[in-house]
């Protein structure tokens, strides 16, 4: 593909997450007051309202909670059919990502997956998943 994918605009609330992904890590935000994990990242813990947080590095193991295979419309920067996966992470929480290296008929709800950091031709990195080895 020639065109590149749409990049996320970065603010104080999400830029750190993408920086960690750029270092080949899959971060999950954690409240330092009550240890509750949260994703997508937000500035305050909805459980205890603490604004102090750090993150853990996810091991990258998860299962397929739901998915959709996109056919239309097709946007420059993406390959179709494009499988979007909603993944339950082993540590807790869910992430919306792309499933690759999996034939259409092999996609099954609850299948074990492994997350990895994909690098685009332009150097942009983002988490994706594939069937667990």
């Amino acid at each position, binding site marked *: 593909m020639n065109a590149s*994918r*749409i*990049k*996320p*605009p970065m*603010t104080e*609330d*999400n830029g750190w997450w993408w920086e960690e992904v750029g270092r080949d890590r899959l971060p999950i935000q954690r409240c330092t007051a009550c240890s509750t994990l949260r*994703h*997508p990242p937000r500035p305050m813990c909805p459980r205890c309202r603490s604004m102090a947080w750090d993150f853990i590095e996810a091991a990258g193991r998860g299962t397929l*909670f*739901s*998915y*959709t*295979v*996109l*056919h*239309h*419309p097709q*946007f420059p*920067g*993406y390959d179709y059919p*494009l499988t*979007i996966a*909603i993944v339950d992470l082993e540590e807790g*929480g*869910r992430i*919306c*990502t*792309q499933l690759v290296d999996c034939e259409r008929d092999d996609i099954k*709800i609850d299948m074990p997956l492994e997350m990895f950091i994909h690098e685009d031709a332009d150097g942009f990195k*983002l988490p994706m998943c594939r069937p667990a080895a």
Partner: protein
Amino acid sequence: MSTALHNTAAIAGIGQTTYSKCSGVSELALACEAVSRAIDDAGIEPGEVDGLVTYTLDSSDEVEVANSVGLGDLTLFSQINYGGGAAVGLVHQAAMAVATGSAKNVVVWRGMNGRSGKRMGQGVSGTIISSDIIHWSWYMVYGMLTPASWIAAFTTRYMHEYGATSEDLGRIAIAQRKFALNNPNAAGYGRPLTMDDYLASRLVAEPLRLYDCCQETDGGCALLITSVEHARDLRQKPAVIRGVCQASSRGQEQMTSFYRDDMTSLPEMELAARQVYAQSGLGPDDIDAACLYDAFTSEILVQLEAFGFCARGEAKDFIADGALEIGGRLPNNTHGGLLSEGYIHGVNNIAEGARLIRGTSCNQPEGVEHVLISSGVGVPTGAMILGQA
């Protein structure tokens, strides 16, 4: 539960433009035409309108509409967020204004070149300018940009847990297309749809096919809301608001409430159901017809469960024998709905709800006392029940 919005206000006027794929006019022109027709339908003068409500997504400002239509003093102007989730919320604003005396005659509208202009089905993009761009970016980066893709991810899990099939979704598309065959203003007019047609249609976002997705439409639709007392003196039979609400729940996101433990139900729509049933003193057994928001077929299944017409997971059985058609338990979107009439962001579904109370639907069921109407699915939403004066 407050009863201030029970039998206080009514829909007294309906205005709509032609619905098409290319209007050839501005969105402001569509808004003005719809608003003007709603005023004429009710039989009041433009100068009597003192409130205007629309969508944050509508491109026409209240004062631009007011200046074009020749309105006078305005004491209410408001815009509701969350796309189609705003639909019933417009009427909620209007009803609150009427109930508190903030305004007497409120027109709500949506005017959009949804096909020839900005196409909703083409999704959000890198040029989107809004405060929630970070929210969308978690999905945009993966190419998950369209309403169909967001609802499809929800639908996959629902179908997996409850065994609903493509044929079940097809039955909803076909039921509403049958209604559209009697509606000359509908995109589906003159275009019958069979199960074979449905199953052969191209995949858009699995499991959703072309006919699971609503239209993209150019058009405008407006409603005039006033007090029940005033509505009785006007030209049309009033559609009395028995209850109306907005609803958003814990874990609610815009179209991507993927992070709740359970992704097979709509807590926000269940909250809407509790509110409108409590306000009205009615229950699902009292509802004779519905205009449930239908941007995608699968949204109907989950709403039938949220509003208590059947148990969770049983909507596929509820609809199996034509329950959503004329003569069925709950004729739904008798104009064709967003799927087969047109996508005026849900305001056209509210207009049909008012026609069902008037007795003027192009597919009028017998003896309609109460109609249930909902706002967009997957977003902060709302619902209302209309009844006879």
